[in-house]
């Protein structure tokens, strides 16, 4: 589904990604974790080309992201993305947020986009908030709308960039619940998160990054029970011990 081959990326002289190679299979849930500044958010933003890479290759469904011949807009329409700060469009209602790209990118009719939006709001448990504006919702509700917005495009994969980091603690679970349900339904997911409970529960694999490198890429139970590198052990002890 997604492959990374020797991906390198620089911000000026600073190398954010160093020779990153990995893959995400169809219907697989892969969690990416690591200390802040390790390049995990950058890695996930390279998948839909929001961040360009300098060398190496990323493919999604055998389409090369960095290839000049690739229609990036068409590819992005099939890759759902959820951001740390939700990034709902504040000047549009919840319903319009979910409908806009369906109509403008997929050319769906108004009635189709409306039906789809209502169905997805129902699914994330927000059908009574359809006509509100993002600022009238709690953080957890906003993030669930953002997930619905991504799902409305019928994506082949969903990318999550620290989806719960900006949330108050009591709202984290309502978002994770939606994500767990999604994972159990077989959605292919790549999730940057510090929520190790979520990783243990639904992730097939865990990728651990540090200083721009993929340090570990293991099945979930192996990663948690027997991390090989000291850096991963150190990270896990810090994040799990309280």
């Amino acid at each position, binding site marked *: 589904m997604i492959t990374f081959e020797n991906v390198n990326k620089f911000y000026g002289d600073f190398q954010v990604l160093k020779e990153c190679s990995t893959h995400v299979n169809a219907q697989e849930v892969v969690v990416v974790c690591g200390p802040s500044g390790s390049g995990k958010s950058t890695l996930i933003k390279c998948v839909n080309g929001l961040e360009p890479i300098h060398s190496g290759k990323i493919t999604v469904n055998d389409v090369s992201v960095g290839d000049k011949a690739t229609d990036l807009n068409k590819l992005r329409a099939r890759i759902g*993305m959820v951001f740390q*700060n939700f990034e709902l469009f504040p000047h549009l209602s919840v319903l319009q947020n979910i409908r806009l790209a369906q109509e403008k990118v997929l050319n769906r009719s108004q009635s189709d986009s409306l039906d789809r939006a209502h169905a997805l709001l129902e699914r994330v448990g927000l059908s009574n908030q359809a006509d509100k504006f993002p600022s009238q919702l709690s953080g957890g509700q906003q993030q669930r709308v953002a997930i619905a917005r991504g799902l409305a495009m019928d994506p082949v994969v969903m990318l999550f960039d620290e989806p719960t980091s900006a949330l108050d603690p009591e709202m984290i679970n309502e978002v994770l619940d939606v994500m767990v349900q999604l994972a159990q339904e077989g959605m292919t997911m790549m999730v940057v998160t510090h929520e190790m409970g979520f990783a243990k529960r639904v992730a097939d694999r865990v990728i651990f990054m540090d200083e721009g490198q993929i340090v570990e890429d293991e099945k979930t139970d192996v990663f948690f029970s027997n991390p090989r590198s000291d850096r991963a052990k150190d990270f896990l002890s810090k994040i799990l011990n309280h």
Partner: protein
Amino acid sequence: MGAFDFAVIFDNLPFLMKGMQTTLLLTALAMFGGIVLGTLLAMARISSITVVSVVAASYINFFRSLPLILVIFWFYFLVPLVLGQPVGGFYSVLVAFTLFEAAYYAEIIRAGITSVRSGQFQAARALGLSYAQSMRFIVLPQAFRAMTPVLLTQGIILFQDTSLVYVVGLKDFLVSAELIANRDQRLIEMFTFVAIVYLIISYSASQGVRLLQRRMQR
């Protein structure tokens, strides 16, 4: 006949109203044209294509470095020359004001666009919207909402600046009043009246903007 005779105003009201119409029409059209052109300039200014950005920046710096009165004067002679036919004073000053104001509007709108969080643009692109669609549906509506008070304030300044068409003799409100003032020898009455009208319109407009600003902050 006393020292002051304000009847001269009422006697010539239709003529003055016609002048005011010219002033308001010029303000509205130049504001509209300036905002449209200014939006294009602002987007060109922030373009990642260096040539486009440099051309836009040069345009903006050029017009912001010239006195308005010079631009009005200059275009009065230039526009008919470029078009190869006389166009009349109104159209030449309209072109001058539009091109001049566009440079100021461009800077306001550029600030508006950059005030929209970059994540908004990223989210739009991540959904598959093109650059143009992301600008049109996501970034510009938010930028204009944030910038409306500043754009309107610039419009009030424009309203006052239109009186500079005096230099080319276009019959706006001020010139109309001056014609009557000279003809009837009622200079003080007429200019006092003109001052009061400009004051009332500009002051109430800026109070309106303040009200709008306060409502937006809530």
